[in-house]
């Protein structure tokens, strides 16, 4: 009888060290003897021609050893996840204020900082190109002149288009047309542990970097090319990781530290303060989106047109993939026959934008779900009903969105939400309830060979699983241990997962795209299956040789194709539905989120504690995105420079009631049916909150975050808020606004449609 490791709410094995303060993050590592300290000198302006970078007085500061510039990098001096367009150290130009122009290495942090202040830059500031729409105009300066153009203007990083059927004709004839313009802003990842690390050479000349990252092997590949080093000479040892959320997928200080250690021959340490962390890593992409949706009078979707414009900032990072993901998710999980989605991601001199939990799907989910909620309102339909009428067809291929699974998230979220009534209006407070659904691809799509390798050593004492899956707090170490224990039929405490060292653990791919549970989970399951068969062939565990047996397996996810080719672009999905209850102060525009109910289809919940943690954490992160977080940039320069200014939710802001519901429709390819859920938990929450704001007040807020100013402006443009009436005091307890009221308050879509 197999033990049930999969599905049990086991406590995470790294928990005791974390509650004792014994877990070591990069800034906590013992500082080696003779360790130097490096400080980056960053571009003072977001766009400039650089004529010269000179140490100036830096070398006369006591303790300063070196002032490194691009000439010291020696390799390509370029990095980037999808294309190497970002210099490690600036050469003849700077394109963002995060560009590093020089690296000062000194005996102490104080000397290095003093030296950094004295480095002399000879540069000519250029006007900053900060509007992505203007960056596509013929007159706009070309930011990467050496790059072959991929779009109508050389500043276009990527362009995508999906066309299906005849959307123009169908929209022209549709009885219901809903239009909307939507806008989302930058968001800071705001992981709690700022970037830090130590690099040092060992006796054999190998350079080792102790750091927190999401994809150590990819960091090393980029570092090897940039520095002109053989890959075998570089190694990463991961420490505990103070959060990531996509913000550690791009290289931050990795190459700088390896460069400094190589050039000085000494160990080198770097610890970014919060201001440098915010300046030094990317942000979520701001999107401008124009949507047109056509439906019949029963609320069935006929056609969707969407035009998306994303601000990539100064360098490409993963913008092309974020854009492709946005385009491919632009119509949500629904069946739509006629589709035209166009998207562009554009270089500007704004902060670089990169991966961030949801990877382009957050923005289009906000827009598409606002459209769906407008459609529901127009027809007087329950928001869940309009979605039930547009469920996708039953899957033809394994891994596609399952209509029954999606329906179950709708039904269960609604049932749970409706078990409690909203309070009646009181004073300036209006209460409303909103719903949204979402779908997110799992893993790396668009033709990428998404794979992971696991090495399992099985002895009479238990198993050691080695695979380089970065544990960023989500609990993948536990998930993999439970999958291994289940497959080997071992008690989980006899399984150890080692992921930290690239010299010992094979590559597991990036901890992003909700990839690890599915892909690395499968690699671990396959390796454990083979180990188990070997044991059976040997005739039992007691026949194992003294050192045990070691097997290695690589799992390749099902093949996909790029967006423009025919075929499947994604190999697996997860989906979810959220119902939000909010209170809106119609005098101040302030929104409070009272309750979030979210049903997430996890395929199979490997660990209920970790599942709840992902849903609760994703929901509150989404709440911040929906109503309160800020990241402001003026003329290419971030005005938001502190955690406080980012205004991420506190314990008081966070919804006091979060109800998480697990739906388990197995994915036929997922390990034990599981699919990744790290990102999808965030997606429906934002449009559920904006729908609830609408239900409470009659105002559609189409630009997030829905700050008090924006809520007030939306109230004003939707007609003066009716302070006397209590729109949610409806006899049926319904959360749909009355149709009559809707007709008076035509939203922008209504007017044009």
């Amino acid at each position, binding site marked *: 009888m197999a033990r049930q490791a999969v599905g049990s709410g086991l*406590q*995470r094995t*790294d*928990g*005791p*060290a*974390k*509650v*004792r*303060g*014994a*877990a*070591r*993050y990069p*800034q*906590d590592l013992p500082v080696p003897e003779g360790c130097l300290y490096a400080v980056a000198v960053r571009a003072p302006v977001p766009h400039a021609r650089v004529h010269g970078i000179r140490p100036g007085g830096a070398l006369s*500061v*006591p303790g300063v050893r070196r002032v490194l510039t691009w000439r010291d990098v020696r390799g390509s001096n370029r990095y980037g996840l999808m294309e190497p367009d970002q210099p490690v150290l600036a050469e003849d130009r700077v394109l963002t204020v995060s560009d590093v122009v020089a690296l000062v290495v000194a005996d102490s942090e*104080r*000397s290095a900082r*003093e030296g950094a202040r004295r480095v002399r830059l000879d540069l000519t500031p250029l006007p900053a190109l900060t509007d992505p729409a203007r960056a596509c105009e013929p007159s706009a300066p070309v930011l990467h002149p050496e790059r072959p153009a991929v779009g109508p203007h050389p500043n276009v990083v990527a362009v995508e288009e999906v066309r299906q059927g005849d959307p123009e004709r169908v929209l022209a004839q549709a009885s219901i047309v809903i239009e909307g313009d939507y806008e989302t802003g930058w968001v800071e*990842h*705001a*992981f*709690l*542990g700022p970037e830090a690390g130590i690099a040092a050479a060992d006796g054999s000349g190998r350079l080792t970097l102790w750091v927190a990252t999401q994809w150590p092997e990819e960091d090393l590949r980029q570092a090897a090319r940039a520095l002109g080093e053989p890959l075998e000479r570089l190694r990463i040892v991961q420490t*505990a*990781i*103070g*959060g*990531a*959320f996509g913000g550690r997928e791009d290289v931050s200080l990795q190459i700088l530290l390896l460069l400094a250690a190589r050039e000085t021959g000494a160990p080198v340490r770097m610890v970014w*303060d*919060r201001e440098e962390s915010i300046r030094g890593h990317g942000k979520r992409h701001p999107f401008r989106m124009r949507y047109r949706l056509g439906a019949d009078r029963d609320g069935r979707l006929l056609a969707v047109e969407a035009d998306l414009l994303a601000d990539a900032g100064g360098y490409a990072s993963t913008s092309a993939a974020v854009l492709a993901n946005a385009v491919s998710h632009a119509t949500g999980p629904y069946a739509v026959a006629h589709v035209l989605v166009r998207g562009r991601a554009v270089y500007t001199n704004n902060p670089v934008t990169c991966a961030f939990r949801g990877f382009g799907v957050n923005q289009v989910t906000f827009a598409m779900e606002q459209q769906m909620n407008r459609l529901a309102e127009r027809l007087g339909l329950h928001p869940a009903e309009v979605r039930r009428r547009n469920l996708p067809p039953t899957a033809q291929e394994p891994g596609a969105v399952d209509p029954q699974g999606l329906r179950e998230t709708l039904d269960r979220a609604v049932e749970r939400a409706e078990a409690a009534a909203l309070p009646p209006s009181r004073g300036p407070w209006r209460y409303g309830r909103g719903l949204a659904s979402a779908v997110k691809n799992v893993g790396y799509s668009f033709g990428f060979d998404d794979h992971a390798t696991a090495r399992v050593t099985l002895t009479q004492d238990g198993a050691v699983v080695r695979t380089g899956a970065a544990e*960023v*707090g*989500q*609990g993948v170490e536990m998930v993999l241990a439970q999958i291994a224990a289940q497959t080997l039929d071992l008690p989980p405490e006899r399984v150890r997962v080692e992921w930290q060292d690239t010299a010992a653990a094979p590559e597991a791919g990036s901890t992003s795209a909700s990839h690890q549970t599915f892909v690395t989970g499968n690699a671990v399951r396959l390796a454990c299956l083979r180990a188990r068969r070997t044991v059976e062939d040997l005739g039992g565990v007691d026949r194992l040789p003294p050192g045990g047996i070691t097997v290695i397996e690589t799992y390749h996810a099902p093949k996909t194709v790029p967006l423009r080719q025919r075929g499947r672009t994604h190999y697996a999905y997860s989906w979810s539905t959220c119902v939000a209850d909010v209170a809106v102060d119609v005098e101040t525009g302030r929104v409070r989120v009272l309750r979030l109910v979210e049903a997430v289809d996890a395929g199979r919940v490997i660990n209920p*504690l*970790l599942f*709840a*943690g992902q849903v*609760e*954490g*994703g*929901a*509150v*992160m989404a709440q911040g995105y929906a109503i309160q977080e800020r990241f402001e940039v003026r003329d290419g320069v971030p005005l938001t420079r*502190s*955690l*406080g200014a980012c205004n*991420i*939710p*506190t*314990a*008081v802001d*966070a*919804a*006091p009631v*979060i109800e998480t519901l697990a739906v388990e429709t197995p994915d036929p390819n997922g390990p034990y049916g599981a699919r990744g859920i790290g990102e999808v938990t965030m997606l429906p929450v934002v449009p559920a909150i904006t729908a609830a704001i609408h239900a409470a007040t009659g105002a559609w807020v189409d630009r997030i975050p829905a700050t008090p100013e924006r809520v007030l402006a939306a109230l004003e443009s939707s007609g003066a808020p009716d302070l006397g009436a209590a729109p949610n005091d409806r006899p049926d307890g319904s959360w749909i606004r009355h149709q009559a009221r809707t007709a008076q308050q035509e939203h922008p879509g209504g007017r044009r449609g």
Partner: protein
Amino acid sequence: MAEIDGVMLTVAVNGRAHRLDVVPWLTAAELLRDVLGLTGTKVGCGVGECGACTVLVDGEPLLSCLLLAPELDGATVTTVEGLERDGLLPLQQAFLDEAATQCGFCTPGMIMAALSIPTGASDVTVREALAGNLCRCTGYAGVVRAVLAAGGNP
């Protein structure tokens, strides 16, 4: 850089007395982490906005990044490393039971702040008491459950 006289201070940290000569600009967080090697106290922002560096100074939760080390002269300081008596405190255990720690970077500060919450506190009181401690992973749900389950100050 001119030579600057150090400052002598006496401080008891986790039950051990220390007499130290420090530069006057050293923060309490730097004293704990860099001088005494107590890296359980985290620095997430350095300007008093995230709460990760919360420690008890004479029993009161304070932000060690905003205190200068010389201000600790004569004080009794407790950090997360000084909490265990016979195993984990009930509050630490509750953080494990309720999955209140994910990346864990905020956890020591969160625990130090939560230790001052009186037994029997309401959900609202717990949230207000923890409003100065940011967490980006958990949505605070598990943290609040843990504090309520452990029953606050032992």
